[in-house]
C-alpha cells in the first residue's frame, strides 16, 4: 500500500478573484476556483518566496538565466502535488460583478485620472486543500510548508487572487493519503481524463442531482515567457463506471482525490 504524508487545510474567504486572461476590455472575470498556480503563489507567500516582481527585477539586473526563469514561488513549488476540493453549491460559488474606482491617476495612467474597474468576484469561496509530499519536491521545502501551515505562520499575508481578499486558512492538519485503484467517484478538481466513462444509469445522491463542471484553467507556466498553459479541469458527483488504469488517485479523509 502506497501512503503519502499529506497536509490539509480549509481555504476560504469572503471574496476571491482569480483573473482570467482571455478578455480584458471592459470587465475582468474570475475563474470559478483557485487554480494551481494561484495556490502555489499563496503557499509561496506563506514561506516568503519572491513573486513576479522579484523575478522581473532579477531579470532586469542580471538578464535572463536559469535562476530567474520562473518566479521563485513557482521554481520552488512547481513539483508540489495538490488536490482541491470545492465546497459551495455543488462546487459552485456565486459570482458578482463589482465596480469601483481607482482615482489615483499616477498608478493607472488612465486618461482623466479616474480608472473605473469592473471585476467579477467569487462570493464566500471555500476549498479544502491537500498538499502531498512527493519525491520530486525538495523535502526541506515541504517540511517548511508543513510547519508554517500547522503552526499558522506566514511571512506575507496570503490572499485569494488579489490583496483585497484576505485568505482564511483554517483547521490545518496532517493526514495520510493512500493510493487507490478502484475509483467510483472523484471528490476533487481533476484534469480531464480521456476515456473516463460515467455510469449513466446510476441514481443521483440523495436530495441532490448530478452536476458536471469543466473549465480551462492554468496548470503551468511557459518556460520561455511564463504565460499560462491551460488544461481542462473538471468536477462532478457522477459515478464512474470505468477509468483508465494509469490515472492516479488517493484516498484521504474518506475522499477520493486527484492530484493537480
Amino acid at each position, binding site marked *: 500500500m502506497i501512503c503519502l504524508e499529506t497536509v490539509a487545510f480549509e481555504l476560504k474567504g469572503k471574496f476571491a478573484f482569480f483573473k*482570467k*486572461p*482571455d*478578455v*480584458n*476590455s*471592459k*470587465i475582468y*472575470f474570475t475563474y*470559478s476556483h483557485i487554480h494551481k498556480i494561484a495556490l502555489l503563489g499563496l503557499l509561496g507567500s506563506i514561506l516568503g518566496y519572491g513573486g*513576479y*516582481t522579484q*523575478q*522581473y527585477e532579477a*531579470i532586469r539586473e542580471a538578464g535572463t538565466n536559469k535562476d530567474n526563469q520562473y518566479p521563485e514561488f513557482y521554481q520552488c513549488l512547481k513539483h508540489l502535488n495538490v488536490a482541491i476540493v470545492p465546497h*459551495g*453549491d*455543488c*462546487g*459552485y*460559488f*456565486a*459570482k*458578482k*460583478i463589482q465596480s469601483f474606482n481607482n482615482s489615483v491617476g499616477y*498608478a*493607472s*495612467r*488612465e*486618461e482623466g485620472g479616474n*480608472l473605473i474597474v469592473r471585476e*467579477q468576484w467569487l*462570493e*464566500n469561496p471555500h476549498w479544502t486543500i491537500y498538499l502531498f509530499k512527493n519525491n520530486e519536491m525538495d523535502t526541506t521545502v515541504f517540511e517548511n510548508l508543513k510547519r508554517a501551515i500547522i503552526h499558522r505562520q506566514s511571512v506575507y499575508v496570503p490572499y485569494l487572487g488579489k490583496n483585497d481578499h484576505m485568505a482564511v486558512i483554517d483547521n490545518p492538519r496532517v493526514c495520510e493519503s493512500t493510493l487507490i485503484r478502484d475509483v467510483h467517484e472523484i471528490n476533487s478538481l481533476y484534469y480531464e481524463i480521456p476515456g473516463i466513462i460515467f455510469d449513466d444509469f446510476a441514481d443521483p445522491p440523495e436530495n441532490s*442531482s*448530478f*452536476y*458536471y*463542471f*469543466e*473549465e*480551462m484553467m492554468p496548470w503551468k507556466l*511557459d518556460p*520561455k*515567457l*511564463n*504565460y*499560462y498553459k*491551460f488544461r*481542462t479541469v473538471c*468536477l*462532478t458527483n457522477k459515478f464512474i463506471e470505468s477509468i483508465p488504469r494509469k490515472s492516479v488517485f488517493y484516498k484521504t479523509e474518506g475522499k477520493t482525490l486527484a492530484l493537480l
Partner: protein
Amino acid sequence: MIMDFTKMYQEAVKKNQSILFDTYKLKRGIYILLDYHKTWEQNLDSIENSYVIIDRTETYVNKSLQEKFKKLDYYSSVLFDSSNKMVDLPGRKIHSITPLAFFMKEQTFLLDKKKEDMSAAEQKKVLFPDELKKHIEEFYQKLEQFDDGFLNLYPITAHKKKDKQQQLKERDQFFTENYPDLVSALKDPVRLNRNHDIRKYLIENMDQIILWLKAIKERTNFSNYVKIFFDVPVEDYQQEYKLYVVQKIYTVNDYCAIDGSNIVGLPSGDMTVNGKKPYLKHRTMRTEVPLRLSVDEAIARKDLYKWLESHGKFITQKYSYQELLKQDLRSEEGMYYLSLDTDSSVIYLDNVPFNARQRKVRVPFREIQYNKELKTYQETDKEIYDRAELFGWVNRFFFKNQLQGSWLTGEISVNQVITPTLQSIILQSRQAWFDFLFKGSASAIRPMINRLTLELITELIVTSERGGRTQILQAYYLRLGLLDCLDVKIDEMKGEDIMDYLSELYHNTDHDLDNNNFFAIENDRQFYYLAGQLTYYLAAQSEAANMTHDLYRPVMMAVGNPEKLKEQLEEMRKIYGYRLRHNYQRFNYAYAAVMGYSPDEKTTQLDKELMLAGLLSANLFFKKKTKNDEKEIDV
C-alpha cells in the same frame, strides 16, 4: 471561458464547417463572380447568373449563389471589419485583402458627378477611372510585398550579425517545417501568374465594369459595396486568406513568440494592450501580455465572437456544455451564461456546473383573482414549479415588470415606475435573482430574501396609491412562498404555514366578531394581526384624492412598541372618527380589544409579519353587511 468556448467551437467547426457560414451575413451591395480567363464580353453573356444584390430586404437574392458568396466573402474580408487591418493602407479604398477579390464602396468609384462639379473634399473621397486603375496597380504591389510578412512574426532577438544570421536560418527552417503551404505559396509560379492575370483583367476591364454597374444600378438600385470575386477554387481563397490572416490576426505582432511548432501571439478582439491603457500590460511580469494563442486558436476566437454576436447582444444567452453549438438546453450538465456589449465585448459570463432545469423548485403561492360574477376577489392556493413562471410573478409583483431586456447587465434608471429605492434594490439583488431564477442556484438569494422582499413590499406600500392593495397582497404571498421555497423561516414558521395561519386568524377573528358577545384577543399574534387590520380600515376612511399607503407608515414604524402602536392607532381614529359609525359593532369590539390588550412578550419577527399581513389581507371591517350592521364595501 472564452477559451473553453473557442476550443468547443474549433472542434465543432472541424466536424461541421457549415457552422462557420450558417450565421455569416453578407453586407449590402452587389456581388459578382467573374472568370478572368474569359473576356468581359464573354463574362457578360452569363452575368445574369453570376451576380446577386444584397439589400435590406434581400429581395434579389439568388440563394445558391449567395451561399457561394458567403464563403468567398469570408475568405476575402478584412478581419474584425477594422480599417487598421486592411492591406490597402494608408488609402483604405480597396476593402478586400486578397488578389482574388476586389471590394470597394460604390460611392468611391461609381461617380454621378464630374470632377469639376465636386468640391476638394469630395474629390479626396473618390477615385476617378484613371486614379482607380493606378490604385488597383498599387494595391497588387502591396499584396506582393505583404506576402512574406508572416516571416516577421518569428522574433529575431540577436544584435550581432552572426547570431542574427543563425536566427534567420532557424526562422526559415521553422516556417518550412511548420507552415510549408505559406512558404511554397511565396514562390509558386502558378499562383503568381494567376494574381498577375487578375490584376491585368481588373485594370483592363474596369471602364466596362463601371458602365455595367451603373446600368444595373439604374435598373435595380444597390448600395454600399461592389464586391467582385474571381472564379477560382475555394482552396485558393483559403490559401490567400491564410497568408493575410497569419499577419493580421494578432493585436500587436511584437508579442508574437514561438511555442513548439506554433506561432503564438496576443489575439485581437476583446483584448487590448492599448497605449492609452498602460495598466493592461503586465508591466512587471516576464510574460508582458495576458494571453498568447496560436494562429488557429486566434482565428477560431474571432469566428466565435461572430457566432456569439449572431445570437444577439445585451441579453444574457445560455449555452449548455454538451450542445453548445446546437443550443439544446435539455442537457443535464453545466451551463454557460454570456452577454455581449454593443461592441461585442463580453460583459457577463459565468460557468455553472448544473442546469436550472435539473433543480426542482416549489413555491407555495396564493393567487388572488377577481371574480366577475361575485364581484369580489378570491384567493386560490397553487404551487409554482417552473422558474420561468416564477420569474414572471417576481417581475410583475415585485418589480412592476421592469426586469426587461438586459436587466442583468444594463443600466437601471429611475423613471415613473422605478423609484430610487426600487433602483437600489434592483442593483443590489439582480445578480442574486438571476442566479436563482435562471441558473438554479439559491446560495446568493437565500441570505437576503427575507430582508429583500420586506423592503420591496414596504416600497410598494409607500409608493402605491389607493387601489393597489391587491397587488401588494399578492406580492406579500409571493414573499411567503419564496421564504418557504428557500427554507427561510420566520420564528420557526415556514412561509406556507404563515399563509395557513393567516387564513385561520382571519376566519377565527371573523367568527368571534360575528358573535355579538364580548370579544377578547386570544394572544399576541392576534393582537398584531388585528392592529394591522384596524390600521388599514382607519386609513381607508381618508377622503384624500390621491391617498397613498404612506398613511400607514407611523403605525408600521411603531410595531416594535405596542403602547406606541396603540397611540398611533388612536391618532388615526381621532383623525377619521367623523367617518366611523358609532354602531359599527365589529369595529368597536376589535378596536376596544386592541386598545385594552398588552402583549406578554417582546415583539417578535413573526408579530411584525402578522401586522403587515393584517394590513394587506382582506379586511374584516369591510366585510359585507350582517344582520345588524351597516353595509360596508370593500375597496
